């Protein structure tokens, strides 16, 4: 039967946490947020390792938690991969996986554990202890152990954070393959935006103990709801401007001593927070005929094959950042023109 996780919990102590979310079977939901925002606590609550003050957690209609009823982790059939994998250091890789199958006869334990270690490409290392395995191999043992008992949900708590990028890529592939085969809800806690974009079907952005925005990765990335979400999604240019007048089909905003016309109807006199996606911004040689804004370069940092250019606009405290090829001849204090594709500008909620 296809399962669906439903969660709606609240707590005030030791820190405020309030969250409501759902995760369908076969779906990978990424909980994205900075350290200390409560995402790991939320995951532990789903696992039954700690409890909220009130609310409800259910899987496929079966209540796991409702404030009074509190099922233990042993009663929930959880596949859980903690941040540092939580492997049993005195057991071999095979015995670690078998530990999750302890209710089965020994022969079946061996067969299933061996099979799972084969699936995560660890057949040559079954007799090795965790200390004799690399970080990536330990992670795969933890994944095999979490999945061996055919869990009803898979919970991953920043499982890739301690790995190098090559190992991480390999594991992304394994997880993406397993995702299509498993057909269970999967929740990934991460603070890595790329990871969330790559693996998740949906992202829930968390901050200060609550869910700030939820949606498809592309939607959340391009249309962050608030300034906090935009910052978490790595949006660089978040600006604040006053709407000075409206005109046909648009509004005019003041930007330092310049004006910018946006194709949105916004209340005149209001202050708007808005963001400039990187693909909406380019640098033009000075005196370009379609120039939107004029400024000068305040800082120039070379990042590999790219310049990270900071542009100051007259009378504006915020700096606009963009990247361009190092082949472009640039110098600090050089006057530049910014071309903005104004239809790609996104207005944030107040």
């Amino acid at each position, binding site marked *: 039967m296809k399962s669906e996780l439903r969660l709606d919990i609240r707590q005030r102590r030791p820190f405020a946490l309030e969250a409501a979310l759902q995760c369908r079977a076969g779906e990978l939901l990424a909980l994205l947020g900075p350290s200390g925002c409560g995402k790991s606590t939320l995951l*532990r609550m789903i*696992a*039954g*390792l700690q409890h909220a003050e009130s609310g409800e957690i259910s899987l496929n209609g079966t209540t796991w938690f409702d404030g009074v009823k509190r099922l*233990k*982790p*042993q009663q929930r*059939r*959880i*596949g*859980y991969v*903690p*941040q*540092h*994998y*939580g*492997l*049993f*250091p*005195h057991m071999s890789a095979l015995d670690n996986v078998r*530990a*999750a199958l*302890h*209710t089965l006869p020994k022969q079946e334990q061996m067969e299933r554990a061996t099979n799972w270690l084969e699936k995560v490409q660890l057949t040559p290392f079954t007799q090795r*202890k*965790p*200390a004799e395995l690399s970080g990536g191999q330990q992670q795969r043992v*933890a994944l095999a*152990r*979490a999945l061996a*008992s055919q869990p009803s949900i898979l919970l991953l708590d920043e499982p890739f954070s301690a790995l190098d990028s090559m190992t991480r890529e390999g594991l992304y592939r394994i997880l993406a393959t397993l995702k299509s085969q498993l057909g269970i809800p999967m929740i990934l806690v991460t603070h890595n935006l790329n990871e969330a974009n790559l693996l998740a079907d949906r992202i829930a952005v968390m901050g200060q103990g609550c869910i700030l925005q939820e949606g498809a990765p592309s939607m959340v990335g391009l249309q962050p709801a608030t300034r906090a979400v935009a910052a978490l999604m790595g949006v660089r240019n978040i600006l604040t401007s006053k709407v000075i007048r409206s005109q046909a089909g648009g509004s005019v905003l003041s930007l330092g001593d310049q004006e910018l016309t946006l194709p949105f109807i916004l209340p005149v006199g209001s202050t708007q927070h808005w963001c400039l996606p990187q693909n909406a911004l380019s640098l033009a040689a000075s005196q370009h005929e379609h120039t939107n804004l004029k400024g000068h370069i305040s800082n120039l940092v070379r990042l590999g094959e790219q310049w990270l250019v900071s542009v100051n606009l007259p009378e504006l405290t915020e700096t606009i950042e963009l990247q361009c090829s190092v082949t472009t001849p640039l110098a600090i204090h050089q006057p530049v023109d910014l071309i903005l594709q104004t239809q790609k500008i996104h207005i944030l909620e107040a």
Partner: protein
Amino acid sequence: MDWVALGLSLKLGVMTILVLVPLALLAARWLAYRQFTGKPVLEALLAVPLVLPPTVVGYYLLVGLGSQSWLGQWLMQWTGHLLVFHFSGLLIASIIVNIPFAVQPIQRGFESIPQEVRDAAACCGMSPLRSLLTVELPLAWPGIVTAMVLTFAHTLGEFGVVLMVGGSLPGETKTIAISIYDRVQAMDFDAAGSMSLMLLLFSIIVLALANSLSKRFGRRGNYHEI
């Protein structure tokens, strides 16, 4: 060589371990995993025998379990004999003075098991008992061995509290440490010397064995060495 006294000391050491270590396991696990108000006070209370002169512990036990106390009288009615100047009284005294030597190393052993490992055991569907037997005890084993060695060695060498509670009754309360003292008082330095040498060698062998056993188990995991 006072073989009776040596036998009594060994018996007292083994009995103390058999009674104290299982109780210490429960207490140490509870103290290692739980955070509660008053925990530092409780830990300090359990550590008191470390700093208190053994004669003070012995004095309170003598007074508390003696024939003049209500507890002593009640125990006399129940068991038919007084606990003081009897092996059972000696055992109780030995257990009390050894509490910190047993509890603290085991508590450190449990504390060294990462929370993630215990969480993983629970998420693997293991009951608390199964988790204790298959995950926690093997990982806390070096701490448990240390507790057993310290308790045994401390019991063998205990003098003040034994003398206060047990006196020096041959075969009943006269341990090897008391016997050495008796021999010195009687100016029998040959007997005192041979017993002391034997106790010294025995202590070294037990410590070496325990250390090697602990390291062998410690190598099974990542976390422990004593």
